[in-house]
């Protein structure tokens, strides 16, 4: 071992180590530091005993407190769910008017619906129901399958072209792909559809072609979309009179839809949500701004 010696200037012992003539003073650690250091060691040992700490081959030491974060979280989730259960139960029996009349229930419905929407629906329909090409905007007042609370809930429950036995089904033929109409006829029909829709202001239809297209329309399209193009919600046929297009509103996109007859799939959510959550989801979508009053409105409760 190296030689420890006394340093002249400070009167302290050196460690005896020497590097190129530099020697190190054997300065003691501050007492407070030592106390904290030993206290930390003691605390660590106590922690090992109390809490889960050491990995074993196929598990770990559990600790005498039997602490488990996983179990605690599960218990908290359980507690939260049972705390919310009464509100969900009330929600499951409430109408749109009934929810609107009860501020507490309304707030709960929107909060619960927003949360469920964000986790499950926003991927396709966009946060806030802004929609995307092929995925309907939910915030507007255009509804393919109906916009009352009951309609919306039914759509969420059974889905569209889903595997649910009661799924909402509609199928637009692919007039071009399947050769049902010639490209010229499709072009004429496109001009006609533009001419009856509000898009006529910006797309300036070829009126001669539109006149020819009217015959094609009445023969092929009117059975579902209606003689005047108003659509039919009972069979999921969109209105053609407005300027809102599920698959895009340019001339080429309208034409492509007649050619291809695209129709998206929305899954059924019945198996995933309980009745209360379904109602909250429907209410949230209803309240995005385009919700329609109940078909048979609940008479307003007379005061007292």
């Amino acid at each position, binding site marked *: 071992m190296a030689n420890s010696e006394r340093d002249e200037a400070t009167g302290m012992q050196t460690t005896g180590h020497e590097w190129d003539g530099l020697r190190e003073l054997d*300065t*003691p650690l*501050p*007492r407070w530091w030592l106390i904290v250091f030993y206290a930390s060691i003691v605390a660590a040992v106590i922690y090992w005993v109390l809490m889960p700490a050491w990995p074993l081959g196929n598990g770990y030491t559990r600790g005498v407190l039997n602490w488990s974060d996983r179990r605690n979280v599960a218990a908290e989730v359980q507690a939260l769910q049972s705390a919310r259960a009464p509100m969900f139960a009330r929600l499951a029996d409430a109408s749109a008017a009934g929810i609107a009349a009860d501020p507490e229930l309304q707030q709960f419905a929107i909060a619960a619906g927003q949360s469920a929407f964000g986790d499950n629906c926003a991927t396709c329909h*966009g*946060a*806030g*129901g*802004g*929609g995307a090409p092929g995925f309907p*905007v939910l*915030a*507007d*007042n*255009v509804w393919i399958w109906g916009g009352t609370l009951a309609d919306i809930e039914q759509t969420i429950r059974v889905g569209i072209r889903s595997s649910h036995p009661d799924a909402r089904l509609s199928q637009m033929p692919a007039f071009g792909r399947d050769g049902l109409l010639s490209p010229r006829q499709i072009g004429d029909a496109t001009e006609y559809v533009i001419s009856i829709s*509000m898009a006529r202001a*910006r797309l300036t239809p070829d009126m001669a072609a539109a006149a020819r297209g009217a015959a094609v329309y009445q023969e092929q399209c009117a059975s579902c979309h209606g003689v005047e193009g108003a659509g039919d919600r009972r069979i999921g046929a969109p*209105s053609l*009179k*407005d*300027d*809102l*297009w599920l698959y*895009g*509103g*340019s001339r080429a996109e309208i034409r492509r839809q007649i050619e291809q007859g695209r129709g998206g799939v929305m899954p059924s959510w019945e198996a995933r949500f309980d009745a209360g959550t379904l109602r909250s989801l429907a209410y949230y979508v*209803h*309240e*995005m*701004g*385009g*919700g*329609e*009053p109940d078909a048979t409105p609940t008479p307003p409760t007379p005061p007292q």
Partner: protein
Amino acid sequence: MSKTTLIDTTGRDDLSIDASAVNSKEARALYKKRAQIHPKLAHGTFRNLKWAAMAVLLAIYYITPWLRWDRGDGRPDQAVLIDFEGRRFYFFFIELWPQEVYFFAGLLILAAFGIFLSSALFGRVWCGYACPQTVWTDLYIHVERWIEGDRNERMRLEKAPMSASKVGKKLAKHTLWLLIAAATGGAWVFYFGDAPTLFHDIFSGQASTPAYLFIGLLTFTTYILAGSMREQVCTYMCPWPRIQAAMIDKDALSVTYRPDRGEPRGPHKKGESWEGRGDCIDCRQCVAVCPQGIDIRDGDQLECINCALCVDACDEVMRKVGRPTGLIAYDSYANLERRKQGRGTSYRLLRPRTILYGTLMTAIAALLAYGLATRSDFELNVIRDRSPPYVRLADGSVRNDYVFKVINMSALERRVSIEVSGLQGARLHATGITGGGPVVIGARADGVTTLRLHVTVPPGIEAGTHALRFTARDLSRGDETGSASAFLAGANP
């Protein structure tokens, strides 16, 4: 390490005490164990001032939570209350909401300038008289003195072998200290809940866990900081001694030993001439009374809290030996210099620095008072939904959605009518309502009422951002408030 014969100031025969400045920088070697300081009781102007300050400050701290202030039904009647659960701060007639914390920021700035100003004028008066560390340490030392006696007795007790009487005294002292500490922690939590209810709950074991935790924490810190840490808090832990060097200048008053009068110092026997020597008789009374364990004659130093107890001690001695008082006094560097040059003492309290601090404080205080006087208890916050940015409707009109927060800080519910203006054809309405016009709601008292409404603009609106304004009017009181917002319309599909 000087052992000095003292003149008799106590009337007792034990005149020899070992008064050394154990906490001065030189005496405080890095690895040396801390030496216990046993401050002697001083008598005089500044001791009385400290008693008064202690009484007033402790009274404010302990009594404030018990003051009542009627705010009407269902609202807390505690004059000063920080209600975390209800997110309110009550201070007599003022009720602040969380978004108004800038008042606290203003108060903190005011406090900072206050301490700057007091430092520039009188040195560390905050440290010496008002700092909680000083107040509670002083109280603890007083308890210690009451049970164990003054400096000499305490030092003798320290050296004495363990005995029943020594154990009894120590036990009594620590019990009293702990009681004071617990009362300190107890009073703290009263600021955060209804004091009488909490008082009952604490003793019946029904108070919340955080309440007990905070009582425990403050009991612990009070006991440790005022009982055993004492001057070490000021010397090692507190940042202020470091900062204050920048706050004082040559004209700032601080507790100063006047070497021009005192030196050369030395013991003096009765009847001896004062010719050719200083007034300091080196009795070390200034060291004996110092709670910080320093010798003021070493000059201004970081450890000194400017409590001026040494001034009292020295004045008492000077009167005894028949010399003028004020050998240690509130004095400035400038005066030390002036006297060296043979000029008299002069005080300059009005200096650019103090005028600036004073002006800034006045300005901030005026700004706070103005803000408080003109703050409205009725506000409308509007948050435009940005997802989707706008909604195109079947008939070609465009809709934007807004969340309205009607803030009603008054104690009464308001009937509020919300209107939109500034955009041609804009119609404000709730979901499913086709009509337009003002939307009337009830805004609950002392709370925020949130609702989501839509603005629909007829077809033909230009693409881009349009300004619009929402106005909320109280239908019964007639006061109104508003909020500017925007309406966004997109290009055609």
